[in-house]
């Protein structure tokens, strides 16, 4: 957006009585999302070399879990101080990120040693560690990372406790919360967005990986069988669909659309339809929820993540072993036809204003 566009936007806001005074200048240059992703990946590469430096140069650190934890915590504390002391420095930001990632790896190594007997306890301890770092380290990329990994560690704990059927619903519910709060707490916007992106990544991962692949992965790590058998699996799938319906209800309320209104009923019917599909294909609900919330908040990156999650889940669904390919084919054909019929109904009951004008 150019400086003139910015002035024009400010003038429109002032005319609408929403702001006062002169337009603020641009505080500082902003990095697009892909530059932040690049910095995150490079930060990890740097962290791996720093870890190798510690592993080779200070072997005593990795020989004892206690020493590894203390050194890791010290490194993370140093990184946090660095971020707080020189928040605007690009080099110190990147150095702090790599340092903290290396420190986290050392602490996770120690936690795995301490809680080796219980994977659930280790995963919960990692989730707690990442949550603390999320609060203490004031850096956007770092917060996205800690939110993502912390949430995924919690999902792991849930899965290892035999409740993996509820993982997509739980992490999607967690993801929705910061995005629904984004506009209500603008002063904490950056914090909420960092949490939101991290939880979105965890939700995408959980939705795409859900099912057989997840079970195989957990089994490889000594994970537990699903509790409650088929009945609980069904309940978990139902929860995935219900989370989508809840998200749509929240959005309708936020947009001021009553359930009695035609548009509200159409949106709720669409959500109900997708929730029904989620009963057999539980990744659909969370993926659509990410897409819809991304669109509702005017956030293209989030909407794009939702599309990727949907495509990723359908690719993974091919390999899901809970049903034969024939059964899955029948479900998808039915769902596809119903969705196209729903589109036909939408165009009939909610015609496009432009098309009506041309008619």
């Amino acid at each position, binding site marked *: 957006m150019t400086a003139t566009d910015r002035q024009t936007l400010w003038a429109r806001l002032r005319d609408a009585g929403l702001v006062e005074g002169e337009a603020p200048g641009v505080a500082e240059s902003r990095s697009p999302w892909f530059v932040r992703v690049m910095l995150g990946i490079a930060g990890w590469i740097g962290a791996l070399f720093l870890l190798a430096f510690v592993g080779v140069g200070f072997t005593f650190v990795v020989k004892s879990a206690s020493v590894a934890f203390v050194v890791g915590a010290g490194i993370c504390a140093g990184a946090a101080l660095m971020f707080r002391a020189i928040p605007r420095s690009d080099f110190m930001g990147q150095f702090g990120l790599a340092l903290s990632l290396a420190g986290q790896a050392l602490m996770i190594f120690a936690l795995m040693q301490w809680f080796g007997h219980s994977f659930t306890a280790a995963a919960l301890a990692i989730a707690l560690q990442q949550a603390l770092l999320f609060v203490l380290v004031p850096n956007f990329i770092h917060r996205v990372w800690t939110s993502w990994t912390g949430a995924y560690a919690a999902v792991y704990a849930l899965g290892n406790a035999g409740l993996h059927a509820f993982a997509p619903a739980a992490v999607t519910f967690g993801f929705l919360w910061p995005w629904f709060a984004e506009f209500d707490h603008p002063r904490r916007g950056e914090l909420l967005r960092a949490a939101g992106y991290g939880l979105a990544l965890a939700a995408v991962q959980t939705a795409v990986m859900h099912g057989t692949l997840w079970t195989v992965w957990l089994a490889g790590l000594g994970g537990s069988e699903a509790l409650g058998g088929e009945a609980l699996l069904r309940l978990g799938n139902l929860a995935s669909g219900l989370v989508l319906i809840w998200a749509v209800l929240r959005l309708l309320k936020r947009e001021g659309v009553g359930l009695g209104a035609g548009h509200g009923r159409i949106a709720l019917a669409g959500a109900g339809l997708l929730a029904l599909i989620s009963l057999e294909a539980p990744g659909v609900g969370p993926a659509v929820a990410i897409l819809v919330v991304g669109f509702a908040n005017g*956030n293209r990156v989030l909407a794009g993540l939702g599309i990727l999650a949907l495509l990723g889940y359908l690719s993974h669904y091919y390999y899901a072993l809970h049903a034969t390919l024939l059964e899955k084919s029948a479900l998808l054909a039915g769902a596809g036809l119903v969705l196209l019929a729903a589109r036909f109904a939408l165009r009939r009951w909610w015609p496009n204003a432009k098309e009506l004008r041309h008619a």
Partner: protein
Amino acid sequence: MTHSRQDLLEWAEAGRIAPENLRPALEVGGVLPDRAEWRAFLDRLLLWLGVVMLCASAVFFLAYNWQDLGRFAKFAMAEALVLAALAVIGWQGVERIAGKAALLAAALFTGALLALIGQTYQTGADTYELFAAWAAAILPWALFARFPALWVLWLALVNLAVVLYFQAFRGVLGILFGPERQLWLLFGMNTLALAAWEGLAQAGLAWLRERWAARLLATASGALATALAVIDIFSKDDIGVGGPVWLAWLAAAYAVYRHRIKDVYVLAGGVLSAVVVVAALLGRLMSDTRAEAGVFLLIGLVVIGMSAAGGFWLKNVASEEVES
């Protein structure tokens, strides 16, 4: 929309917009969708989700190879799907969104039909031939449809055919067709496709100006160039062409995406590629050093320094782009 969003959120964060005024401000700025945009979104969501599920259903069905259904019935089904999709294109026209969705479905159903032929008649053809035939079959549609997603599908099929071709002949001609040759061919193909895409878009083909597709190609081309350079660095031969070609790729990417087209996404990819190649080069040059820990620390610091400097530069380029 995205830039207005960022500005408005920053103003609210700085306290220049009161919390209770943020939502109305986002509405005034056109960031939040209005009713017409919601309707268009639901329309597209239902259309694409429905079409993707139908296509996946056809693929799953044929992969199941249901024995209770005769081969003629299966062929009739697969052909009917292609014909139905073509009928929708005839009805809606290829310029409308429903026509485009039907065209993509027709292209996917064609692949399913070809797979069915291979499955039924056990022609002895290799898998790569299926993908090559599939790409050849949908090429005329791609040429006439002016639809970027169909071209991306076509390029994905050609890439898959190449990968599978090398897999099929690895055992027989392993020396001649080593993994590097495969990477070179894929690199050449994707780079050529990228150059053609950008060139034609610049020459006036407006429908090719969708950045996501060009970025996908640039990612493939850049990743392959990086892989070739890293292989070259760690190969036993002293001199290879991977490094110089990577350098040429980087220079060309800088010239094109910094000065002609201005795409910070590709520049960010270039920075990451440079970080990876320099780290690999330092690792190779210092592999004989006794002070291993010092080498790791040095490489780590170089990676951090390079990426930080790259991030700073990209941030400035991005803000220039916005102001331009």
